[in-house]
């Protein structure tokens, strides 16, 4: 996909999700990782992307109101299983 040493930082930024999703071919993965090993900026970028995903996992979500849950339980009961 890419010739050795041809991956620039701008490419790494574009490929970061494909890398995390394991959607890259083996040769590109090697290129990608070789680039990270010598590029602090891109290594930090990947780290930031992982940090973003991790923080999203801690975003609290509003829940369904108690009234709504109660209504649903009654409806569930009403179906008369």
């Amino acid at each position, binding site marked *: 996909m890419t010739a050795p040493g041809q991956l620039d*930082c701008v490419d790494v930024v574009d490929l970061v999700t494909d890398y995390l999703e394991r959607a890259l071919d083996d040769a590109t993965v090697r290129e990608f990782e070789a680039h990270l090993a010598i590029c602090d900026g891109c290594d930090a970028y990947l780290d930031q992307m992982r940090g*973003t995903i991790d923080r999203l996992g801690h975003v609290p979500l509003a829940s369904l109101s108690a009234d709504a849950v109660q209504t*649903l339980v009654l409806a569930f009961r009403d179906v*008369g299983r």
Partner: protein
Amino acid sequence: MSKDTRPDQLVVFLPTQATPSAGERELLARLRAGDEAAFVDLVRRWSRTMLRVARGHVSTDDSAQEVVQETWLAVIKGLDGFEGRSSLRTWVFRVLVNTAKTRGVTESRMTPMSSLATGDDDGAIVDPDRFRGPADRYPGHWTSAGAPQRWDGDPPRGALRVEVRALLEAALAGLPQRQRNVVVLRDIEGCGSDEVCQILGLTRENQRVLLHRGRAKLRGALETYYRGGS
């Protein structure tokens, strides 16, 4: 026609049809047997993410609550007819997305155009000025000022600081709808990529592009915050 979906819920492209796991089949049996505790547990577990997805399609929190409630009512009615051609979660979320979209359409006259935009902008995900230009010795590489820095001062694990939480909430709300749905399902609900493709009717490539753009914008918002000094 499958009884699992109404005609408008048929998804054209389904990468893999995950069928209910052994645990899900057991859960399904309990639900069909009228096990209220199992039902309440399921409602509690999934409704938070469902609310968030619904909220992306409708104009108020109340409206999102109604969409989720309506979805669960449809699920209750459809339980016996559910044929298990997808996982239970996929089915429930597909009903949700369709219910939310329908509600969103009827509300659309009152909703600002910006939040209805389905176009997923395709601009650069990182400011091009942060990379060296073609005349540079190292074109396409970070400039010294543009290179990303690691984020310090906030434990990556555990409770988020109030400001970080608010910032992520705002950034999520600002994402185009399809990007937001993918990010919410993948990174907040923790669905796998194939499941998200099934729920939203996306190809794998499409899903990845939406995830990439959505995450990149949230990363950008966080970076601005951490750079600005916290």
